[in-house]
């Protein structure tokens, strides 16, 4: 049981973290593709049309890998987490069913129209397809975050005498404020990533002195959006998520902040290494009283430390702490970098500041890291619960799947995802290399029919 549980957790963590790289791109790039497509329709300017096609090609590769790595996520609830599925299916199964029916169909059917139908359907329907793909990708994100948010903060349910969880109020599950703020924060992370990708590719074209009209367009669109969403990531969405954790998951808060012992006027650690053995934060740089203020609006408020919880109820401190600090640290850097870019733009110095273009280009992977770190904070900090306060992760795995089987399939997934990752990088770099100005639009229906 122990070996199987560990293997099941490793497999889920690996497949979800790999998979999530692609929904970030889909949710983050869909609005840009739709925006350029609409601009092209309005202005009849080939610049926007080419820009839309360029990002649509990258979006398509991203979407393809996202789809094929997404199916294992739904399957794994049943294959590796059968006891979780059996007990909570009456609640968790509903948003998942709705995601398939309301979001995935919308996304895939209209992406088919958008990619293949350029010459086959009217331009208005083509542009409408881009908007519907965008809507589908965000709706899908919302419904899956509803599932996660319910696992973090279960609402709208009742516990049956045999331990099964019954749905009492679907509306409460779908409209849970916890879920909405979590979704908005995750979505903000995705759009911020989209903005940094735009700005980074634009900076690359300007640095390389090619495709410069497009480089400029992408750079300016990118930094405006990346700045706006860097702010939005901190306030209000990050702030509200912090409030929810403080109110409903205080043990997670303590782990995030590396606070081992309860304290009035708890400090906010900027740097420091949590050591579980000695129950201390080693070599910290901390702002006195600030954590108490951020959590409770009072510099002298008491914040519960990890040591106040029974050992069996404590989340892993080190992973939660580092993941959270990586996210917050990067978020701060994103705000600084985009603010600087905006200031230099207003002064008219941005395109001459090659050092900043370099920084924007090299910044591209970091929003991905920040997104992943945020999810690690959320999910590892939720442990040892799979449904917070209701069901433990150790009671959730399939009893009829042994560790050896899960190890076998982990090996398979690692090999498969290595191949997918290589193909993704190869194809995206190739598209960037070809650039928006080239006349190549992928397969077309009308070119095919003789």
């Amino acid at each position, binding site marked *: 049981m122990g070996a199987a549980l560990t293997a099941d957790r490793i497999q889920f963590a690996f497949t979800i973290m790999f998979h999530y790289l692609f929904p970030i791109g889909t949710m983050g790039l869909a609005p840009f593709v739709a925006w350029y497509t609409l601009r092209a329709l309005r202005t009849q300017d080939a610049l926007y049309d080419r820009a839309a096609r360029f990002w649509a*090609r990258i979006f*398509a*590769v991203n979407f*393809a*890998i996202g*789809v094929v790595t997404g*199916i294992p996520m*739904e*399957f794994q*609830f*049943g*294959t*590796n987490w*059968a*006891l979780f*599925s*059996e*007990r909570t*299916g*009456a609640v*968790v*199964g*509903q948003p998942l*069913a*709705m995601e*398939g*029916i309301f979001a*995935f*169909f919308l996304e*895939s*059917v*209209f992406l*088919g*129209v958008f*990619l*293949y*139908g350029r010459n*086959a*359907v009217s331009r208005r*329907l083509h542009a409408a397809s881009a908007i519907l793909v965008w809507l589908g990708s965000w709706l899908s994100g919302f419904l899956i975050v509803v599932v996660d948010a319910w696992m973090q903060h279960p609402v709208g349910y009742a516990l049956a005498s045999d331990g099964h969880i*019954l*749905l009492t109020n*679907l509306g409460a599950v779908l409209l849970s404020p916890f879920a909405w703020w979590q979704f908005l924060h995750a979505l903000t992370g995705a759009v911020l990533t989209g903005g940094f990708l735009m700005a980074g590719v634009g900076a690359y074209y300007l640095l390389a002195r090619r495709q410069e009209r497009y480089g400029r367009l992408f750079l300016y669109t990118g930094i405006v959006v990346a700045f706006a969403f860097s702010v939005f990531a901190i306030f209000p969405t990050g702030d509200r998520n912090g409030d929810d954790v403080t109110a409903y998951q205080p043990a997670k808060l303590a782990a995030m902040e590396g606070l081992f012992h309860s304290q009035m006027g708890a400090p906010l650690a900027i740097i420091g290494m949590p050591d579980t053995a000695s129950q201390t934060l080693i070599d910290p740089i901390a702002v006195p009283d600030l954590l108490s203020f951020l959590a409770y609006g009072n510099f002298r408020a008491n914040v519960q430390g990890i040591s106040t919880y029974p050992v069996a109820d404590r989340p892993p401190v080190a992973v939660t702490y580092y993941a959270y600090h990586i996210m917050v640290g990067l978020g701060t850097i994103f705000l600084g970098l985009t603010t600087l870019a905006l200031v230099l733009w207003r002064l008219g110095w941005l395109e001459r500041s090659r050092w900043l273009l370099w920084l924007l280009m090299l910044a591209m992977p970091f929003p991905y890291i920040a997104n992943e770190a945020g999810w690690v904070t959320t999910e590892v900090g939720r442990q040892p619960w799979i449904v917070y306060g209701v069901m433990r992760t150790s009671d959730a795995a*399939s009893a*009829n799947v042994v560790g050896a*089987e899960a190890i*076998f*399939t982990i090996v398979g997934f690692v090999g*498969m995802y290595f191949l*997918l990752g290589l*193909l993704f990088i190869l*194809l995206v770099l*190739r598209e960037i290399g070809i650039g928006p100005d080239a006349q190549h639009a*992928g*397969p*077309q*229906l009308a070119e*095919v*029919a*003789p």
Partner: protein
Amino acid sequence: MIVVAFIVLALMLGTYVLLDGYDLGVGTIHLFVTRTDAERAATIASIGPFWNGNEVWLIAAGGTLFGLFPLVYASSFSGFYLPFMVVLWLLMFRGIALELRGHYASELWHQFFDVTFAVASALLALLFGVALGNVVRGVPLDAQHYFKGTFAFLLNPYAVGVGLLAVLALAMHGAAWVALRVEGAPAERAARALRIVWPIVLLFTLALTYATFRVHSPWPNLLAMPWIALAPLASAVGLLGVAVLREQPRRTFAASSLFLAGLLASAAATLFPYLLPGFPVAEHGLSVYTATVPPATLATMLPVIIIGIAIVGAYRAFVAGRLDRGSRGSA
């Protein structure tokens, strides 16, 4: 209401087989009905805008099974652990083969993905058939309704027979699609392939119908609900249609769809009320009456699911019509 839930689920899975069935069929036969890179590109482009939406029927059906029959979802997915994982990997290969093929103008790149597409499609059809065969035959559930699907148990002659029938029937369906939707030489070759494939499909169907009476007798359901005999009848009419309507691709494809729909309806009618019958005794299995969520949840979710599917059906039909008209108009 529970019967409605069973029908909704069966319809979603049936729609998946009819729609993604032609994608898998095109994959299985495309190397046999094409000679050049351009012909393969045209054949694959004929399913290009549709295959992903078709695959969503499987995902949506999985989600619906999870929401309406969590115990069946948990038991079947964990019991068929390794086969399901192999299905996942094959779906990945099939998906990237279709989506990434066109991103590189190199024949070697295309050849790699064409063969990947063919092998993955044929194996997927085989595995889906083996899974259906085992579901009809039943699985050895324990007191908690779980089981361990070892390969030695799952690869029994009946299930493998259903798997082979699935490969052949979907290859026929795919050939009917190519004959209908691709112009020129591939369509002619696909029409010739149909003439070879349908008699083999007929033989397999007859043999497996006989075998089904041995492993999970439809008689009790047939006697209780004689009208379900319409399902195998429809199937027979469909196969006959494929045989005689060869010169009319639109009708051949409709006949092939009717054949598949009839087969699946027959399987569903045989299974009812079981979703996962026991082995060797069906009664120990999971039926719609023992494995569902409470009636209040069904009453909430069924309308949501049914309205959702109706909306999907409407825009899917609209989009297919527009793409169809557009590609014809510019021809």
